[in-house]
């Protein structure tokens, strides 16, 4: 009886709770509608988040990068080491990978030749995932080669490749489907030392958490390096490219998808509200005489109204709570399968749909209760007493 003890201090809640207890089956059935509605909203919302996270992590390598090259108003060709340091300072705690570019032709033992782009850098592991071998944190010796090129030429890990008159051993094979770059051409990744005769870097790649962070950092860098001159033109010292357009398109598609899923979910909640409206209306009509007695003994209209609205809110809360619990289980399973980590469901991004579902359930129930409550409260006591 703990809950009734507490409710005793809130008369409307107390009466509402007792009234719901009078016909448990009806209460359960009315709540069931809400349960289904909440499950639809919450689990479809969470599904949207799961799909978006999955998609972002698949496409993330395209959009989480910012590419910096020499600007058109720059006095130097390429990006200087000083500029790289400045970029590091401004960009903060992200990976900043300066690199040289070149092109070369590599040949196999049987004389077959292949044109490849050459990238000279140190932090190989930031930009390249390997399908075989390793992608070292600091590339000091040896090279990485795109695996499709390696296959064509019959080159394996440990084989030598000649570049710029020097021999390098292949340490890792790069997965071929990475990023926008390459354009079908294979890539040969060499240590910076192989191109140390260059004065400046050709480009700098910044790798961030996600597309939004990339967009933000690109904007900060543009502000910093490319000052507006007094005549309104921009003095472009560095050319800074991010893929915010792509990111925006992905985001807007995902939002559309999420809205569509939520729309479907909302329909079931509307159906649930109609069920509650029906149940509340029936139960107030059945209790007409009883409500007449309440009014006769001096219970105010507002108090009757509150009592019945509280009943509706309780129906919503009971159904909402059950719905949230079931949705949580569905969400855990979903993230376990899609993201490999069930606990992601507790992050606000997806957990908020549980909160929304619950609030919608209570909101929809109260709205459904309005008409029955208003009708009961405004019934004339003399007529209500006749039953």
């Amino acid at each position: 009886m703990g809950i009734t003890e507490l409710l005793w201090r809130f008369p409307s809640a107390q009466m509402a709770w007792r009234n719901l207890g009078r016909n448990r089956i009806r209460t359960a059935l009315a709540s069931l509608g809400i349960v289904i509605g909440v499950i639809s909203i919450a689990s479809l919302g969470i599904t949207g988040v799961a799909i978006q996270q999955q998609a972002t992590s698949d496409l993330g390598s395209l959009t989480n990068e910012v590419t910096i090259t020499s600007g058109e108003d720059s006095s130097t060709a390429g990006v200087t080491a000083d500029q790289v340091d400045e970029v590091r300072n401004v960009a903060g705690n992200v990976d900043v990978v300066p690199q040289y570019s070149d092109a070369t032709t590599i040949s196999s033992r049987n004389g077959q030749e292949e044109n490849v782009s050459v990238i000279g850098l140190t932090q190989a592991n930031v930009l390249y995932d390997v399908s075989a071998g390793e992608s070292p944190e600091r590339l000091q010796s040896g090279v990485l080669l795109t695996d499709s090129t390696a296959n064509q030429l019959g080159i394996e890990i440990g084989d030598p490749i000649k570049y710029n008159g020097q021999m390098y051993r292949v340490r890792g094979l790069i997965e071929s489907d990475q990023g926008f770059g390459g354009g079908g051409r294979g890539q040969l990744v060499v240590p910076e030392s192989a191109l140390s005769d260059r004065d400046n870097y050709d480009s700098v790649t910044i790798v961030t958490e996600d597309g939004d962070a990339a967009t933000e950092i690109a904007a900060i860098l543009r502000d910093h390096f490319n000052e507006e001159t007094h005549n309104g033109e921009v003095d472009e010292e560095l050319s800074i490219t991010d893929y915010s357009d792509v990111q925006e398109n992905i985001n807007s598609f995902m939002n559309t998808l999420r809205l569509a899923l939520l729309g479907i979910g909302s329909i079931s909640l509307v159906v649930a509200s109609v069920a509650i409206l029906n149940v509340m209306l029936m139960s107030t009509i059945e209790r007409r005489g009883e409500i007449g007695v309440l009014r006769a003994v001096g219970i105010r209209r507002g108090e009757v109204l509150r009592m019945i609205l509280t009943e509706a809110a309780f129906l919503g809360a009971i159904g909402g709570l059950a719905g949230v619990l079931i949705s949580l289980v569905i969400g855990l399973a979903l993230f376990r399968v899609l993201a490999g980590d069930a606990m992601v469901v507790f992050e606000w991004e997806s957990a908020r749909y549980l909160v929304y579902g619950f609030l919608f359930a209570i909101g929809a129930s109260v709205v459904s209760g309005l008409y029955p409550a208003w009708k009961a409260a405004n019934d004339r006591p003399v007529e209500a007493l006749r039953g």
Partner: protein
Amino acid sequence: MSVIALTDVVKRYQTGHETVEALKDVDFRAERGEMVTIIGPSGSGKSTLLNMIGLLDTPTEGQIRLDGRDVTDFTEDELTEERRSEIGFVFQDFHLLPMLTATENVELPTMWDTSVDRHDRAVDLLHRVGLGDRLDHRPDQLSGGQRQRVAIARALINEPDILLADEPTGNLDQDTGRTILEELTRLKEDENIAIVSVTHDEQMIGYADRVVRLIDGEIQ
């Protein structure tokens, strides 16, 4: 001063195209410590008169004064406040709420008044009507006579000036009816209230201080 006074009260209903005059120039008053019983055949306007006295219905013409105050033109909300503080009701079918215990049913009219705790008075009233050992029973665990006693205790919870009883013995056997009437007589004196009842019960007339006969909406 009369606790309730109706002067030249007329009540007309529109039923279809016909106008029915349920009460015709009725004058009625009741004093504290008095039990008035209204008798009359069905359709004589007894219930309409009781509804007027109980401020559940408003007259078409005439005036109603409660404790000397003119309440004739009060709004529904103002009438609710008067019922809440001045009037107690006892119905023929008891009209207890099935999900509440005897004590909770007695407390019901003051339940939303969180400023005053009427729990002790509710228990006291139940003791006084002989239900001290039935405090936590629900209506379906009580006999008809016991239910009517709970209803009487409920009618007194707000320390009213008037207690209105619509056929209070109508659903009870003769012996139980008599004990209820004795209860009412005792409470009338203890609480110094006016009791106005409507009845068909001959036995009830014997307990009345005054009998008002109503025929065709007119007091004889």
